[in-house]
């Protein structure tokens, strides 16, 4: 396995392009989608503070095309689940996910969204992939803004390489 890094994912999947059957139009659409992912304002807890930090001038997610955080899920492509999801919040979370139009992607930001984090108890959903299919997990508690940017960049590489969104490949975890 080659070393990880930016662009490697795209290279690894380069030879799959013929099998997936991407056309030039498909590549153009993927280029447009990948470079203008608009996130939904789904900040829940501490990770939301680092998510707002990427909008700031130092980390600047605008250079990746994702600075327009839409409040309405109908206008958003990406749901960054940032923070711990309690069981009470799981139903609204799924509802917001359902309201998003396809194609849509989910980033589970932080340890709590990926697996329940340090809260292995009655109140917290042990991983948001139990209710929504997740494309990218970003580790950290909370992840640095650079880590979240890395997650968004990896997602961009996936989209540009033609990998379908998570709901087409896999469902929710059991």
């Amino acid at each position, binding site marked *: 396995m080659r070393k990880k890094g930016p662009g490697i994912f795209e290279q690894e999947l380069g030879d799959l392009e013929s099998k997936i059957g991407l056309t030039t139009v498909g590549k153009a659409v993927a280029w447009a989608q990948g470079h203008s992912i608009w996130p939904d304002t789904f900040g829940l807890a*501490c990770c939301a503070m680092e998510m707002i930090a990427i909008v700031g001038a130092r980390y600047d997610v605008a250079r990746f095309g994702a600075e327009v955080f839409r409040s309405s899920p109908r206008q958003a492509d990406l749901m960054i689940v940032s923070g711990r999801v309690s069981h*009470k919040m799981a139903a609204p979370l799924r509802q917001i996910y359902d309201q998003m139009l396809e194609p849509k992607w989910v980033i589970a930001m932080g340890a709590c969204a990926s697996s329940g984090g340090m809260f292995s108890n009655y109140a917290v959903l042990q991983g948001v992939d139990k209710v929504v299919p997740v494309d990218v997990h970003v580790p950290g508690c909370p992840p640095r803004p650079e880590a979240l940017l890395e997650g968004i960049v990896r997602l961009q590489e996936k989209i540009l390489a033609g990998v379908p969104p998570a709901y087409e490949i896999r469902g929710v975890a059991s």
Partner: protein
Amino acid sequence: MTLAARKQAPIYTGTRIPSPIPSVLQVDPVLREEGDILEVNFGPNHPSTHGVLRLIVELNGERVEGVEAVIGYLHTGFEKNMEQKTWWKAITYPERIDYLSFQINELAFVLAIEKLLGVEPPPKATWMRTLLCELSRIHSHLIWLGTGALELGAISLLWYCFRERDAVLDLFELVTGVRMHTRYFQAGGLAEDIPPGFFMECRKFADVFPGRVDEYEALLDRQAIWLERTKGIGLLSAEDAIALGQSGPVLRASGVDWDLRKVQPYLAYDQVDFHVPVYFNGDVYDRYKVRMDEMRESTRIVQQCLDGMPEGPWTVDDRKIVLPPRHELHTSMESLIHHFKLVTEGYRVPAGEVYVAVESARGELGCYVVSDGGSKPWRVKFRAPSFVALEATATTVAGSLVADLIAILGSLDTVMGDCDR
């Protein structure tokens, strides 16, 4: 009006706390019959509710006639989780409760443990804790200002405030190694010594910051739209505020001079000189002014802490609670045994119950701890200021417009992690 006359004039007469349920504003039955009441859900996912708060609002046109707050969407079960961990490991939990002024939460729990143990940390730890808590307060107020102004339309302040916030987080990273959720305090002092270079960086920040606060205030204070949207909105009188358990900037904006740092000084607050801002109109504008002034006062405290930082050890010398330095583990058998016992079993805290209250950026943050003498807490409860602040929603929102509702929620400065725990 002279200052004395202003102090005497009540914000409104009588009480505006709804009855019979103090936290629910109910629509007048006559209006419900005749008027056209629309029930709207300000759902848990809303850009302006500062987290996952759900408000069930009943509107008559644009006017809010009924409101009920539904919380619990971020309930994490901190208190039960902390009962499963040893005292040392449990300190990582309180930080995530109020994730804006996280070090102050840690402080409350650590002070409670120290009160039960009966240990007094050394002066260097006390002064450093004071400094970091004031930086946490600045951090919290910056985020409040950035997001609060964003909701009312002053969007560029978000970028300015987050620029300063990154400067504060750089300081935290310099000292502790992480930006947020630093876990730097422990029972007996600090986790590690203060690294060199911190004081110089902190001084640079403290020299620049008051000028920045003046800039932000200049952007807002003379802006007609800001004044129109915040003056006279969300009134809360002093008696109602005390009856509703409000503390912190909300109470001080209603004219009550009550700050736990002055009233029951903890850490090094009795050795530094600072002023407590109190305003008398009880509206959104006054709460904003209180927080702006608090940022300036916090910077003064930071500068005084930098000037007066004592030398010496950073933890207490008691090996039964604090890990021995690593180089001793090679030579001393007792240190090895202490290290082993502390890491596997943890220190034991004498039986008893204590309640420690500190002044967080939102008000009185209390930590009630019950110990049975063992190595794990028996019960930990956090008195969350945001939980109590949301009870005041019904009182402050009575009769206002929907747009004012957003301004009032912003001024109460609630953090849902703190509210739901």
